[in-house]
């Protein structure tokens, strides 16, 4: 019975099966194969191993993929540490002057931050924080806390007392980070050289920006060098005491001469180091709210000006060096004027006689300078000025600089006017470098704001004129200091030489008769110059003692004299009681005007 039953069942099943056989049979077969694989049997081991390999490969692929994702995508899952290290202000090296006085340094302060995601009650947190830090804007803070960011600043650089108070509030998700704050203990002194750094300690101007451009920011980006002790202090060529003295005298001068601006600098002519650089009005680097106003520019470096008669020194040096003139050459100034097409150039201090080269310099003769420049020719003039770096932008460590304004078409009339310092506007620092080369023996050294040795300067310097020409220039500058327009700066004992320069300012394309731009360049001591002094006033006015004159000798000249008197002892220039014996041997041998 039973078997028959079974048979009947089997038959029925077979009948059913035959209907579904088309699909069920392969499935069953596949299932059986899988079961075979896992049955412990030697001959099936190969596909088993293959399966394991497949599994592990998938696992490793997943891990690799995730790693690649983490490495490439800037995920939002940055930790707090990462966020803060990006946001807090990095350490900067100290800046010190040439004697090691601190000009800029970092101090530690504490900043408050918040993690909006972790703050439970944002309104309460806002209320509490603004109660403790009253100068916070409540609405702005609420908006900040409302974001989904992992990290926001609440307030930078708080006081220790405020820190204690915020700490006592005990708001979860609010914390402190120690930060570096840049301080400039000397206030406005050397503002234009130092520049300043913003609240994130990123250099914005001046040497501070230069430091960043030297790779500091890259270091910080890599998470290195966040401690000031890791960084070597940067030694500038500036002497803080001299810097202050120069600024003080210029500030007094601005008041006395009612000028709209002033600038000044002192340079070591043998090394090209800038010992002091002042531009007034200036700003406080610790609070540079007005630093970017237009009248706060660094007039030594960013302003370009027609330097007036100071350029005559370049013209004379060019003519002497080219051999077109010697110290005894003479030039007629009869008539008192020269005509170039429609333009007429007049003598300012007309003498009407024939002048020798030193006299051309002493009387600041326009005609003499023009004749000298024309004897060299337009191309020669251009080449000489290019060699003296007067036609291209001069780059120093300070990132701010201006290109000179050179006439687009340079004809004879341009050479004539540039010969006496009109028609070519250069940065005063540039002119200083050139005058430095004229007097230091003929080597042009690009000025620097970092400390530099004389050997290094010698290596970098380019010979531009002959030593004999340089001696002639020193001679005529000294002569001008003794007998000429630079007498106001002839401080006894320092053997000062100098040159005044008064240029009329260009207002709306015309030279304004009563608005002057005055410069005074002085060297000390003239027989072997060590320092070059420059003072500039923009629109100085005449005053009672000057008889209403507002030319350079009456303002920039007097200031330079005071600066020399005040700073020479600091600079280590020994006063001398007798004039040096035979300071200009070559000039004496040639019997130049003024040596007899």
């Amino acid at each position, binding site marked *: 019975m039973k078997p028959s039953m079974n048979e009947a069942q089997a038959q029925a099943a077979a009948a059913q099966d035959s209907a579904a056989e088309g699909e069920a049979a392969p499935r069953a077969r596949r299932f059986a194969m899988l079961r075979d694989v896992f049955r412990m049997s030697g001959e099936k081991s190969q596909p088993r191993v293959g399966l394991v390999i497949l599994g592990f490969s998938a696992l490793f692929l997943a891990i690799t993929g995730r790693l690649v994702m983490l490495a490439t995508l800037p995920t939002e899952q940055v930790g707090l540490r990462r966020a803060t290290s990006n946001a807090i202000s990095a350490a900067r090296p100290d800046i010190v002057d040439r004697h090691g006085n601190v000009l800029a340094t970092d101090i530690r302060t504490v900043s408050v931050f918040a993690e909006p995601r972790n703050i439970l009650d944002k309104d309460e947190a806002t209320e509490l924080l603004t109660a403790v830090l009253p100068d916070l804007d409540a609405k702005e803070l609420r908006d900040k806390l409302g974001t989904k960011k992992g990290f926001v600043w609440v307030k930078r650089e708080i006081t220790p007392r405020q820190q204690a108070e915020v700490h006592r509030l005990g708001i979860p998700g609010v914390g402190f980070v120690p930060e570096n704050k840049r301080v400039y203990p000397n206030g406005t002194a050397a503002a234009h050289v130092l520049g300043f750094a913003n609240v994130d300690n990123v250099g914005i101007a001046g040497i501070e920006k230069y430091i960043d451009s030297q790779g500091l920011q890259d270091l910080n980006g890599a998470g290195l060098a966040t401690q000031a002790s890791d960084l070597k202090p940067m030694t500038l060529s500036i002497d803080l005491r001299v810097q*202050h003295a120069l600024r003080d005298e210029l500030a007094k001068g601005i008041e006395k001469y009612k000028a709209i601006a002033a600038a000044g600098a002192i340079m070591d002519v043998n090394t090209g180091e800038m010992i002091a650089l002042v531009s007034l009005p200036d700003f406080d680097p610790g609070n540079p709210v007005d630093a970017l106003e237009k009248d706060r520019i660094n007039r030594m470096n960013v302003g370009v000006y027609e330097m007036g008669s100071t350029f005559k020194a370049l013209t004379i040096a060019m003519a002497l060096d080219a051999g077109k003139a010697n110290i005894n050459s003479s030039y007629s100034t009869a008539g008192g004027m020269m005509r170039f097409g429609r333009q007429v150039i007049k003598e300012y201090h007309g003498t009407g006689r024939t002048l020798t080269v030193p006299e051309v310099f002493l009387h600041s003769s326009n005609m003499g300078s023009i004749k000298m420049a024309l004897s060299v020719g337009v191309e020669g003039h251009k080449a000489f000025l290019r060699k003296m770096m007067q036609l291209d932008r001069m780059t120093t460590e300070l990132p701010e600089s201006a290109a000179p304004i050179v006439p687009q078409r340079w004809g004879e009339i341009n050479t004539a006017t540039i010969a006496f310092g009109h028609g070519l506007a250069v940065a005063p620092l540039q002119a200083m470098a050139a005058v430095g080369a004229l007097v230091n023996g003929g080597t042009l050294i690009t000025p620097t704001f970092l400390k530099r040795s004389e050997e290094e300067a010698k290596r970098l310097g380019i010979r531009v004129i002959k030593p004999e020409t340089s001696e002639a220039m020193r001679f005529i500058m000294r002569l001008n200091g003794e007998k000429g327009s630079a007498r106001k700066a002839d401080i006894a004992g320092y053997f000062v030489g100098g040159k005044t320069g008064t240029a009329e300012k260009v207002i709306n394309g015309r030279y304004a008769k009563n608005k002057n731009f005055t410069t005074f360049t002085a060297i000390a001591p003239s027989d072997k110059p060590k320092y070059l002094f420059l003072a500039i006033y923009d629109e100085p006015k005449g005053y009672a003692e000057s008889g209403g004159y507002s030319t350079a000798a009456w303002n920039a000249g007097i200031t330079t004299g005071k600066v020399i008197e005040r700073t020479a002892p600091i600079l280590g220039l020994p006063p001398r009681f007798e004039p040096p014996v035979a300071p200009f041997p070559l000039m004496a041998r040639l019997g130049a005007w003024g040596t007899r």
Partner: protein
Amino acid sequence: MIKLLHVIAIGALVSSALYAYTIKYETTLEAEQLQKIRKKAQRERDAIAVLKAEWQYLNRPDRLQALADRHLDLQPFSVSQVVRIADIPNRGPKVDAIGRKLEDLGLGIPTETPKDPKDRKASATTPGGRP
């Protein structure tokens, strides 16, 4: 015998474990101490930086100038105040101290008189003589 060996081995094990733990705890303690000292040193460094900045702030030239103008009777240095070594008159010849005393008492014979006034005059001219 074997029992004894076991006891010794167990004893050695326990003591070595104890020793290892003491070393570990000491190390932890030292590490903590080091961390503390490091932190302290950092605080000191920060304080030094602040003090340095403050020192320079108090010594900034414009403040010193203001203070000097207010409290001191100093004048700006002038070349005419400098004298050369050669311009300083020579020291007089050595004086007999006892003789001087006798003279002061009115007992002595006439002694030293300032020597050669003409010579002195010549050397004392123009301190800081202008060239």
